[in-house]
């Protein structure tokens, strides 16, 4: 989930507060397809990815694009607005009650005497695959180069013939599609969805992205892992009430010690 965040931020320097809510929409989308139409899990998930990618592009076109030249603060406020909007629309359609989500990774595996749901290894494997694919995309394809160029200097990128609008749309599509994938895994592990689930999730994904070094893909992955492990350890050894405090505590600590994140590149530049 942090991947999508980091990606969007990396290209347009926008902290997309609506990211968590896109995750939520993805979850509802998968749930609705499965429970109402009895669509097989895989297709429901794919549909949800497609739906969220389109939603991401739509949000970008309607809410962010007209404001792009007015600076980052207006975009930030708009992003919060979009986040509230999505939450309320979903509440309106599906009501505020939590819904049960059936884990479709059946069975469990036993490692070292402990039982895990198959969802856990599946999450890890698929995350690594996505991370690799993303890294390759950004590093070696011409679209990826264009994304990096736009992120560094959109004006010069235009002079090179890069269509900045479509590059940003593409980034939003990928970022939001990733949100949908994230939502599917989240739901399989936590089996409950509700319209406000996005805020906390989005915030945590954001923390993960910052922790790893915002804009860096492996960084986002690493940050996510740190937070996940940190949460579990706290829950196991200290108290489950402390988890959020620890997550944000870690964020504050990292920002104090290395503001650019674990794998972030320094902002000091030779001019």
């Amino acid at each position, binding site marked *: 989930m942090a991947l999508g965040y980091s990606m969007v931020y990396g290209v347009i320097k926008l902290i997309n507060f609506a990211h968590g809510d896109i995750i939520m929409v993805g979850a509802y989308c998968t749930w609705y397809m499965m429970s109402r139409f009895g669509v097989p899990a895989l297709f429901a998930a794919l549909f949800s990815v497609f739906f969220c990618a389109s939603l991401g592009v739509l949000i970008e076109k309607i809410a962010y694009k007209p404001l792009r030249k007015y600076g980052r603060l207006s975009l930030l406020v708009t992003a919060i607005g979009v986040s509230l909007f999505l939450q309320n629309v979903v509440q309106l359609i599906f009501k505020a009650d939590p819904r049960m989500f059936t884990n479709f990774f059946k069975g469990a595996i036993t490692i070292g005497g402990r039982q895990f749901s198959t969802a856990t290894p599946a999450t890890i494997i698929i995350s690594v695959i996505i991370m690799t694919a993303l890294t390759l995309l950004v590093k070696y394809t011409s679209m990826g*180069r264009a994304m990096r160029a736009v992120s*560094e200097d959109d004006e010069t990128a235009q*002079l090179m*013939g890069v269509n900045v609008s479509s590059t940003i749309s593409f980034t939003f599509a990928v970022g939001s599609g990733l949100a949908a994938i994230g939502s599917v895994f989240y739901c399989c592990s936590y089996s409950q969805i509700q319209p406000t689930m996005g805020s906390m999730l989005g915030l945590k994904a954001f923390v993960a992205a910052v922790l790893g070094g915002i804009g860096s893909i492996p960084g986002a992955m690493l940050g996510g892992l740190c937070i996940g492990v940190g949460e579990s350890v706290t829950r196991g050894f200290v108290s489950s009430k402390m988890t959020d405090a620890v997550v944000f505590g870690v964020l504050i600590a990292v920002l104090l010690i290395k503001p650019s994140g674990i794998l972030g*590149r320094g902002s000091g*530049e030779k001019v």
Partner: protein
Amino acid sequence: MLSVENINVYYGSIHAVKDVSFEVRQGETVTLIGANGAGKSTILRTVSGLLRSKTGRITFLGNDISSADAYKLAGMGLTHVPEGRRIFRHMTVRENLDMGGYIRSKEDNKRARRDVYERFPRVRERKDQIAGTLSGGEQQMLALGRALMSAPRLIMMDEPSMGLAPVLVQQIFGIIRELNEAGATILLVEQNARMALSVAHRCYVLETGRVVMASDAGDLLEDDGVKKAYLGG
């Protein structure tokens, strides 16, 4: 090849370019000279589509490009080496070159890269280095090389000598002359008027957003008034 007719450009309420007209013919090197703030860069940015003129018309190779999107011009053979070089600092030298050839095919880029390396051996030596670590002169060569990657018909250069040591300035202007002799048409914006005039065929002098003089570059070098105003006596 390029003709600009009566353009007026504003930054908010500031009237930066006033009724400017000029043309660049096939095979020429034309320079726009003038002091800081005379509107030179603004004119280039308007031709490139990064800024819009309120009035007038800009045509390139017979096409009206007054309201064309900036990203489409690269494909038409117009390239712009922006002020301050603006290379992609976090990318490698080679990736920068590939960005220059963004609109072209892989094979074309391979060939174009070879040509650029041949022209700029320094750039070849550093091809896998992160561009931000290059020296100023190397960065300028990279910026020029990047522009050449798109096989341009017209190269617009904004202050290529800015911030460079005299030796490097000489070298850059040598390259500009070579490019022109090899058939490129060049529109050059410079504060270093003496150097600019030494490579240009024709020249337009700008003062606070207006063209105040247009002539052959050689005549201008001899002109006493110009000498006083722009060449330091």
